[in-house]
């Protein structure tokens, strides 16, 4: 049977872009279906009835949901250009940090950029303190990743791996959030390795071809979340 690979996603979502990056890295042909998240298609609701969210990968009619679960599925199904190492400890490491990025980093970054934005005048001082706390938290989280990178070119070593793909939120979307909100988080001074990694990451062909246009993303986030938390 001819192979059919569908990806239900959204142009601006780092999670659906992860799926496309992995497929591109492995040279797998797929059909992309852009979902309007304000008006979800019957197909999406059928393929992910539990969460009704993107991304969903549908391989020969069988759906797989949750971006990190999808990445492992892709690696186990198409063996060329592996994205997980063979060693069990290194695999555990990649999984641990990928989960860390999703569970802790993204919400902290959002809070630093856009949290406690809208307050009454008298709440301004409280918002400032909250903002500083949030920025400090992001700094601590990024430091973990900076340390994890060590002297490697990519988190995956010589080639891009699952953790690099999962870190697309750090490698590209973080810069977009910074520009959209005016808050500086990933500074070269504090995180030289992570900055170098981000530059290398966005140059990899399979990654570059799957990055949404920067201006469009910035405009989208500014529009959606407002001018941001930058100190006035």
């Amino acid at each position, binding site marked *: 049977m001819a192979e059919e690979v569908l990806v239900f996603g959204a142009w601006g979502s780092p999670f659906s872009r992860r799926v496309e990056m992995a497929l591109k890295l492995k040279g797998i042909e797929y059909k992309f279906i852009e979902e309007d998240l304000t008006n979800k298609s019957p197909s999406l609701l059928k393929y992910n009835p539990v969460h009704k969210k993107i991304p969903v990968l549908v*391989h020969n009619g069988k759906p797989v949901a949750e971006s*990190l*679960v999808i990445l492992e599925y892709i690696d186990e199904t198409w063996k060329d250009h592996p994205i997980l190492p063979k060693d*069990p*400890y290194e*695999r555990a490491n990649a*999984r*641990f940090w990928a989960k860390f990025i999703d569970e802790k980093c993204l919400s902290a970054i959002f809070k630093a950029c856009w949290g406690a934005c809208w307050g009454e005048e008298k709440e301004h001082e409280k918002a400032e303190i909250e903002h500083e706390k949030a920025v400090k938290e992001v700094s601590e989280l990024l430091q973990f990743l900076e340390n994890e990178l060590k002297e490697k070119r990519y988190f995956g070593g010589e080639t891009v791996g699952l953790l690099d793909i999962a870190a697309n939120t750090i490698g590209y979307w973080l810069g977009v959030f910074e520009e959209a909100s005016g808050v500086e988080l990933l500074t070269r001074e504090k995180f030289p390795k992570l900055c170098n990694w981000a530059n290398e990451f966005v140059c990899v062909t399979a990654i570059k071809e799957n990055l949404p246009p920067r201006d469009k993303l910035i405009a989208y986030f500014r529009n959606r979340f407002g001018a941001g938390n930058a100190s006035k």
Partner: protein
Amino acid sequence: MAKNDVKLLGAWPSPFVLRARVALNIKSVKYEFLEETMAPKSELLLQSNPVYKKIPVLIHGDKPICESQVIVQYIDEAWTSGPSILPSDPCDRAIHRFWAVYLDETWFPTMKGLLAVQGEERKPLMDQLSEGIVLLEEAFGKCSKGKAFFGGDGIGFLDIVFGCFLGWLRVSEKITGLKLLDEAKTPRLVKWAESFCADAAVKGIMPETNKLLEFARALAAKMREAPPKN
């Protein structure tokens, strides 16, 4: 310390620690269980899990592995003799992992939320848990393919992830009067729960519900006394 020594930092009430213990038992791995008091946290815990400072932590030789689902997969991949924990087919693996994420990110947090509130506030959470368990009953039907476990003939990844919550599930039922495992609504899961708890890898180490209940009540009392966190 010998190169292949296995230590597990944990605490008896934790369902996440239980997962690691079940996985080690399935693979017949000898390990040293280091019971953490959690207050204060030991130096070893803070050093081996600086990111979260949480249990369980598996220490294999000198390598720490954190996060229970990561630990269980590590155990499966590091000890290859003995039964497999993850299924072999990528599609089945993805299904186990999907429901594992659902349990940890959606279902169990709802249960924790339920135990933290009283009266009217409980109702919507109870409804969510009931809906969720019906989904899990359906998932069991599809995954088990007529056999005893999500993993088929033997305990698999999803059995471990879900099964280790059974103690706390029973505690929630006792505290709130909500019946989650129900002969009428979730007959397959009722049977599955019995099989899981009776399995050799689980039997000696699953905490008794009454002991957990006592622990839960003590914890709730402590939290009521504590000043509100920001």
